[in-house]
């Protein structure tokens, strides 16, 4: 039976090529846009190396101090993190690291702009970097302020011409470091791990950072299991309740929160207060946009299908006259549509593969590698099937209601 439906379906597709083209164009284009959007979201928030433990990680990304006259929001300073985040007992590990700072290096008179991040040794234990050469520096390196550096592939090419870098020394920002490890490039928007060069915090040019409450640093907290996350959030909140602002005359309140990266992103983009969780709101907005975007292609497909099916009134008449039930007819049309949508889905899949390759190659976002992964493909398949069923049912239902006599005469309203 199914085989017959499929045969009929392909004959129908070939008969009215223009309609088939319109449907395929609509479906594949819609899927393309959705899959590129999902690939972007995945690129921002998905768990892939080095952030493989994202599901049990939290971060402290922002600090807000407020007083009667002024409000100051920035990322936290080393002293704050050292005092209130490092001692968290419910966490497995805590890492403190600076935000990446753009620094200059010079090669043959040409300026090479690189990002430099200062981290502790725990950073390399929480994040799982795949090392191309050598390995990470250790907590011991950080304690004794060894001038060692881990660099990414791009830096190896820019500063050392791509040859083996281990043990060589590089000069960055007026300081000299010995390379102990080389890792693959980390995309720009992975705020936690991103940088070009990673060096121990203690190699900073002055130790003033140790006395700063505000600015320049962030922390990553690793929980033992996922279920520990609420406890960590609670412990952190209760710890900072009594935190003392450095300048009590101007500020009397300190607020912060341990949040997932998505939560911190939602807070930033929705412009809400530090410590507020707006991730559900952002998720709602994103889903809303996706649904709104899909309404137009769906309606378009429904309209095309209504027209397309009208043309087959005589066929429906014959089928009905020979006893086909309404359900059988609806089933047939829906299957036809699903097949068409799956073909469109396949085209969309190939297109999104090409477009993502193009965006990756364009260098719009430094080190971004967009992939069509199997998960995105499954989303795409689900969306295509949804399209097929949704856009097929309404017209099919209407046509299947026709009286056989009317249908045989080719009249449909």
């Amino acid at each position, binding site marked *: 039976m199914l085989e017959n439906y499929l045969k009929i379906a392909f004959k129908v597709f070939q008969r009215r090529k223009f309609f088939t083209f319109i449907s395929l164009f609509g479906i594949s284009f819609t899927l393309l846009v959705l899959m590129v959007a999902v690939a972007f979201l995945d690129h921002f928030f998905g768990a892939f190396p080095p952030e493989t433990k994202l599901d049990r990680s939290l971060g402290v990304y922002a600090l807000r101090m407020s007083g009667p006259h002024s409000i100051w929001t920035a990322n936290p300073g080393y002293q704050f993190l050292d005092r209130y985040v490092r001692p968290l007992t419910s966490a497995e590990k805590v890492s403190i690291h600076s935000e990446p*700072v753009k620094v200059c290096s010079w090669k043959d008179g040409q300026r090479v702009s690189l990002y430099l991040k200062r981290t502790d040794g725990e950073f390399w234990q929480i994040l799982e970097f795949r090392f191309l050469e050598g390995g990470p520096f250790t907590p011991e390196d950080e304690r004794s302020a060894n001038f060692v550096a881990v660099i990414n592939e791009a830096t190896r090419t820019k500063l050392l011409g791509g040859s083996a870098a281990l043990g060589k020394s590089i000069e960055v920002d007026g300081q000299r470091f010995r390379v102990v490890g080389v890792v693959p490039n980390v995309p720009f928007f992975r705020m936690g791990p991103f940088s070009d060069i990673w060096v121990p915090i203690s190699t900073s040019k002055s130790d003033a950072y140790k006395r700063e409450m505000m600015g320049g640093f962030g922390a990553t907290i690793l929980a033992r299991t996922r279920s520990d996350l609420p406890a960590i959030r609670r412990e952190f909140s209760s710890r900072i309740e009594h935190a003392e602002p450095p300048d009590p005359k101007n500020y009397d309140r300190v607020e912060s929160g341990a949040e997932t990266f998505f939560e911190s992103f939602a807070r930033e983009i929705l412009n809400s207060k530090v410590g507020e969780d707006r991730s559900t709101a952002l998720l709602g907005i994103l889903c809303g946009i996706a649904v709104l975007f899909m309404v137009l292609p769906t309606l378009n497909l429904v309209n095309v299908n209504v027209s397309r099916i009208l043309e087959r009134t005589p066929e429906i008449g014959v089928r009905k006259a020979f006893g086909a039930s309404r359900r059988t007819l609806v089933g047939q049309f829906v299957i036809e549509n699903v097949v068409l949508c799956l073909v469109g889905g396949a085209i969309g899949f190939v297109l999104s593969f090409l477009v993502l390759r193009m965006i990756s190659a364009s260098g719009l976002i430094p080190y971004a590698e967009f992939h069509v992964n199997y998960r995105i493909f499954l989303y795409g398949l689900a969306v295509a099937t949804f399209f097929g069923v949704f856009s097929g049912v309404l017209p099919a239902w209407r046509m299947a209601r026709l009286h056989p006599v009317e249908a045989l005469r080719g009249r449909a309203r």
Partner: protein
Amino acid sequence: MIGHLFKMVWNRKRANALVAIEIGIAFLVLFAVVSLTAWSAGNYRRPLGFTWQNILNVKINARSSSDDTWGPDLVETTRRLVQAAREFPEVEGVAATLSPPYAFNNNLGGFTHAGRSFECSLNEGTDNFKDLMGLSLVSGRWFTEEDNGANFKPIVINEALARLLFGADNPLGKRLREPAEGEREERVVGVISDFRRAGEFSGAEYVVFYRANLDDSRANLDDPGARPPRNLLVRLKPGTPRAFEERLAGKLQSVAREYSFEVSPLSELRETMSMFRRAPIVAAGVVAAFLMLMVGLGLTGVLWQNVTQRTKEIGLRRAKGATQTDIHVLVLGELFVITSIGIVLGAVVALQLPLLGLLGTVGGKVYAISFGVSIVILYSLTMLCGLYPSALAARIQPAEALHYE
């Protein structure tokens, strides 16, 4: 005639309703993208208020004071850095500022003036900042040495802020807010045309400049809100090679060992900024264009099928004396009616924005223009889609209708 068209549309109301809804949603999509484009284009055409050619920005990462306010040592070091940079023969001038053009961060401050709250971009500049950046004064003056030891804090604001607060009145000598206990009064000494830091694509912003005085380190020490200028703007002689950047950075590094310096030409920062601003507009435009193409193709298909189905009716009309033009008018007229219904549906939704007061910084003019442009584009699109089907319909011979079935 119109009545007849409506009747024809009404007779096939179910199928037409779907098409009208589709056109309505297409209108909304089009309207959103056209507004975004019109807004950006409007911004692009407004003057920047400064020049960016032949200027290097040197970002100073000091990280040496714990409360991020002016300290005598910080001011002294910054002053020495300025001096060191001035010694190069390639350098025409060096100014210092808090937030340079084309930087992604911003210092916002909330003000309340005469019961009205508003947000301003706060910035600082040295006395030579205005000439170095090529700002244009509308009235009053920029900061000068005569501000040394004045009993008020001089500020310079942009024209938009002056208009917002003081309307047609002369803003000079007025203040933005009541001074807090023990604070010096802030007084407007000049109005500049604009300083659109975020670049060509940015929207309107209110700007307040404070004076950064590197010669007198005590001048700002009593002011906890003021921050040291963390960027040097270095104007170079035209044609200075890029290699100069390394020499400049080396020299600055030798003056302040503990600092980090990030040297980049404003032209480069400008490129990055405009790429970031352009990307979403281009993406939205491409997606919208494809959506419109899809709607157009779908509509053509629907109309084509519609015409084929109505062979008998149209043939009959021809037999009864309707000309080819009449048939064209019939098909396109029906389409026009459906499109209008769709646009009305979309417009009802779009009109909620100004009714709910959600226009924000976009402004009524951009809104109105986008509304008109979207309507024109949508009518043109649907009429274009109707051309081929209506030509098919006009070609139908009366004879065909007679031996139809």
